[in-house]
């Protein structure tokens, strides 16, 4: 799998610069006309959202197969409040694309209608939430991207190639994901900050900040910030997508969650104080299997008012390679839940503690996990995030 993650932050910036200069980028035909536009209908033909307009999600808005939603840099999208059937979300169905490519000086913000952030504020270079604390969650749903990548799912229909994404009732067929194309392209997300979401449908059935179901490697996901989502920050189900430069801050559940044999790489990340697991890494659920890599990251496991449930949580059948991760602010009781899973590999995992075995299940030691004080993430690429601007990234 290592051939897939050789995209450096520098290269992606260069790629972005090309995109932003693309002469084909559409121009708002009526600039300044709409300051607030309520969206209630699915997007079934290509559509562009312009930065001078605030888009208000009035429900679960789906970009259906064949359509592309393009969002200009500096656009603010706000979800209305609600829970259960009343939850709002942006759902990119299989075969549809989301082109949400912001810049480090003009990111795209997904947030709640309660957030007073505006395009005008973004123009000043201040990307912090103006009125809501960075621990306010559950005010709307989240961003869900679904693709045709291979998933390892076994459910009541047996070993199946498609299942329903968490948080969307099965009555909405746009919630299906999974297929046979690991090179599938669901679009491009860059410099996107998703805030205050994660409203729930039922216990254990919420919407993650960014849900990635069966996303193929043709998709680009980089420079992402998730702030205070009531469920997981990012959850990935299968597929082969690589994620570069991620901040997951104050997740109500897990900071980063993987399922159904994801085959990609998470490279360069900062995780700050999720309430449940910092990493919730599950194995295949069907016969198909693939291994993922999580590398080059800093994790802060507690703060004054947030303490994570544990550090790294894997199942007996999880296939993952964890490399170059530095975990700080560890409190007694916070542990790595197992080190004996056959397909879990630890390389250069550094815990900022005195006695490392006190933080490993069974009190054992393993070569890949050591005590130390060396950060592993390149945090310079996160200067555009709310977390960095407010000093939450140490």
């Amino acid at each position, binding site marked *: 799998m290592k051939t897939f993650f050789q995209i450096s932050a520098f290269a992606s910036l260069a790629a972005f610069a090309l995109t932003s200069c693309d002469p084909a980028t559409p121009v708002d035909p009526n600039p300044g006309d709409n300051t607030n536009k309520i969206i*209630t*209908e699915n997007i079934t033909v290509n559509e562009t959202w312009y930065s001078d307009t605030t888009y208000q999600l*009035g*429900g679960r808005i789906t970009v259906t197969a064949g359509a592309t939603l393009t969002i200009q840099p500096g656009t603010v999208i706000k979800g209305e*409040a*609600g*829970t*259960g*059937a*009343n939850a709002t979300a942006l759902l990119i169905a299989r075969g549809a694309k989301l082109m949400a490519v912001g810049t480090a000086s003009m990111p795209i913000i997904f947030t*709640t209608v*309660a957030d007073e952030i505006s395009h005008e504020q973004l123009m000043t270079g201040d990307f912090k939430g103006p009125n809501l*604390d960075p*621990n306010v*969650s*559950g*005010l709307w749903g989240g961003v869900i991207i679904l693709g045709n990548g291979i998933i390892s*799912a*076994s*459910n*009541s*229909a*047996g070993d*199946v190639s*498609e*299942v*329903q994404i968490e*948080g969307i*009732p*099965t*009555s*909405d*067929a746009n919630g*299906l994901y999974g297929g046979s194309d690991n090179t599938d392209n669901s679009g491009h997300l860059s410099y996107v900050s998703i805030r205050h979401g*994660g*409203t*729930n*449908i*039922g*216990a*254990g*059935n*919420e919407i993650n900040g960014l849900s990635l179901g069966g996303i193929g490697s043709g998709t680009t996901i980089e420079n992402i910030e998730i702030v205070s989502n*009531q*469920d997981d920050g990012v959850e990935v189900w299968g597929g082969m997508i690589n994620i570069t430069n991620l901040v997951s801050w104050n997740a109500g*559940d897990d900071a980063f*969650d993987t399922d159904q044999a994801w085959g990609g790489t998470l490279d360069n990340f900062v995780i700050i104080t999720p*309430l*449940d697991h910092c990493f919730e890494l*599950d194995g295949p659920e*069907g016969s198909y299997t693939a291994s993922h890599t999580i590398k080059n990251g800093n994790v802060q496991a507690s703060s004054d*008012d947030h*303490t994570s*449930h544990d550090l790294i*949580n894997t*199942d*007996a059948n999880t296939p993952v390679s964890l490399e170059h991760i530095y975990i700080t602010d560890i*409190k007694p*009781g*916070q542990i790595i839940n197992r080190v004996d899973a056959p397909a879990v590999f630890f390389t250069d995992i550094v815990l900022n503690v005195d006695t490392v075995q006190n933080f490993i299940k069974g009190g054992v030691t393993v070569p890949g996990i050591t005590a130390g004080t060396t950060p592993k993430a390149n945090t310079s690429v996160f200067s555009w995030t709310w977390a960095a601007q407010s000093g939450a990234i140490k």
Partner: protein
Amino acid sequence: MRTFIAIALLISSLSSFGQSGTIRGIVLDSESGETIIGAAVTCATCENGNTATDLDGNFSLKAAPGAHVIEISYFTFQTLRLAGVQVNSNEVTVLGELALNPEDNLKLDEVLIVAEVQRNNEIALLTLKKKSTAMVDGISAARISQIGDATAVEAAKRVTGVTVEGGKYVYIRGLGDRYSKTTLNGMDIPGLDPDKNTIQMDIFPTDLVSNIVVSKSFTADQPADFTGGLLNIETKAFPDKKIASFSLSTSYNPAMNLNTNYLTYQGGKLDFLGFDDGTRRLPAGARGSSIPTPIFYPNSEVTSFVQSFNPTLGAMKQMSLMDLSMGYSTGNQWEGKKTTKSGETPKMGFVLSLSYKSNYNFYNDVFYGEYQRYIDPAAYELRYATKQQGQIGEKSTLLGGILGFAYKTNLKKFRMTLMHLQNGESRAGQFWIDNDAEAVGQSGYLAFSNNLEYNQRSLTNILFNGTTVKPEKNVEIDWRVAPTLSLSTDPDIRKTAFTYGTDTFFSAGAGGNPSRIWRYLQEVNVPFRYDVTKKYTFLDEPAKLLYGVGNAFKFRHYEILFYDMQFFGGQSWSDDDPNQVLNPANIYPNYPNRIYYQTGNNDPNPNEYSSNSNTASAYVSTEFSLNLRTKATLGLRAEHYIQRYTGRDQAYASGNITNGKNLTNDVVLNSLDLFPSLNVIYSLNESQNLRFSATRTIARPSFKELSFAQIIDPLTNRIFNGSFFQYAAWDGQLVETRINNADLRWETFWDRGQMFSISGFFKDFSDPIEMVRIAEQQTSTEFQPRNVGRGSMFGAEVEWNASFAGLSESMENLFFNGNVTFIDSRITMSDVEFNSRKSYERIGQTITNTRAMAGQSPYVLNGGVSYTTPESQTNFGVYYNVKGPTLQIVGLGLFPDVYSQPFHSLNFSFTTKLGKEKGISLKLRASNLLNDDVLSVYKSYQATDKIYSRYMPGWGLNGGLAFQL
């Protein structure tokens, strides 16, 4: 239509001043069990020496105190002479049922003399069972009172082939509730539970019941939407004489009553009457899609809105009391002072019955499990996803009243019966929830949940019934209208679950945020029927032609409102007492918890719907004898059924008008069906019959099933999806199940109700409806009703009631009765189901494409030994009841099937009459003597069974007294 009413025979002798007394009785045809109209009743020594029976077969004579001789005669029947009928001053002597024997070919032209008045009150029902061409069975008020059953559901269990599910729902021949039907006074009544097709029988106190009759084979004069059986509850109408009784009983179950660990929660002041006093009402402004939240609302509005919710979120321990049951019944009948133009004396009567019951259930060790298979086909055992273990306390209060008036002349009768039932059930539970992260689709957590529920049900029914007999035309006309309003509300179902980890807090991704639900169900039924029975002669034998029309309109409105507690920012809890959660210090804008509520309700609400249905029916049926031995009923019924729906899906409700779906009184089911029926009875000899029937019936989807409803069960998080949603394997078109039925039965009868029978039956189901687990969903559990291929079943049934007289003369009053039914049901799986099972085939397992029908028990066994003293003053009995393991939930692939396990119910009852005048009845009962558990388990090939649900009802004792006032 005849009403087969067996009225309690109570020969009491209240002393009072006056001169003459009254003699009353009811005259029956011993052959058919039907009442005889116009039989001549003569009594030389009586004041009105000659009279005739009225359209109910009743007669009444006035006589001076002393002994009298009465003769009853009717054309083609042997005359019955009753000697020594004792009359006391100012009292009513009730002779009960008097059966006339038809003159047979031997022409024994003699008067049969009966020295003693028969005290068997079940002639009508027993004869009905023996002689009716349809297969019917039942239990009378007299028998119910003998056994001492308190509610209709307990009494119904005594009827052959009947089992009871969850203490409330009646299953006939082990067929699920979908295939059973319950009517009240022959008229449709709405069920009070939106999840069920039949009514909860536990809400009918036996004080209000005249009899319960079960029909197992369809005849054209009955509604066609039953397959297993049609159970009709007939309420009391008209007493033979002035009655007044008061009963009081109490129960003690060591696990449930006087238990200091009993769980309850702070309810309202009127809970003891079965009403919520407003404690649980929906706060003002909570309806609609926008409620005060920190977004766009001033702080004070958010605070006061949160405070308008009841702050009780936790259960509390409080000692439970003893169960209590009280009943008062009174009634009387009078002869009118004036005679009508035709010289008849009209009769008037009334009956009033009031009952009150309160009972406690406490289940100390309740368990709910969600289990999965392993992916590895060599791993046989099951693994858990979620285990819930805890305690439930529930208190049920039932208030019932029935008031009936009747007026009749010899050939005309009118009655009106008003009934109201009010039931409140308060439930509090506490559970540890253990979720295993290793299981597929699960994240792993530990939580402790407090669940508070209240269910308020009521049913108001008014029956108008008129009957006219036209002897000159040999016609009887009966019409009935019985509108019913039923309401079922679940106000403020609260679930509050702290998640325990490094910190204790509410975690949306684990134990969930605290939630509250309100559910409202209103249903109106307006059934009407008009039936004509005409007697005629066919091949020189009496025959009957029945025809009629009917119409049943039903309307239902259902709505679910859902609210989720949210925290504006982080949480910090100094203690985990749920009753402190809504402490003002935690309510928005107070830091750190800043509680506010978020609504789950769109406007319009996708979980609100209105449905209505109309069944217009017409039938013709004839009952005739082909020869002296063969009697047949041949009928044809037509029903035009139309169901309409007003509702919408989630997409439409959230504003997606283009792609969302919205129906406004749209027709969702429209069918005209013909239901032929043939029932034949062949008398092998005087005491043996052979029966055959072939019928066609129907089972229609319920209102809820034909909808866009998506209903979450707050306790289990299982989600019900209406059938309108389309999936890859489902087109969203749910249709009726049409069933062909065939029955064959041999039976033999002896005296005193002794009998033995063997039956076989076959049923063929096209498009049976089952709840199917939705394959696409694995994070949560979703179900949808779907038509699933074709089903069939074969059954064999043995029934007996025999005295031990054969063993010893002294044991002639000891009876052994029971029935055993074996059913082999088969359904051909859909490809989706078969493939998903196949993909989870374990090594060594062979999966075929058939299985038992869901909800169908492979066997049902009822048995009892009872003893009645010759004077019927004392009875005791031991009764056993069990139903075989039944496929409860069809599991697919990863998820194993769930079977409800047999519950071995063994009960004992004793009743006797005390006092000088025997005016006091004493009842003693013991229930669940085997102390069995109610258990459902997951079953998988070579795996240890794992518990799906388990609770322990415990054994109990009940004692009661009834006084004749």
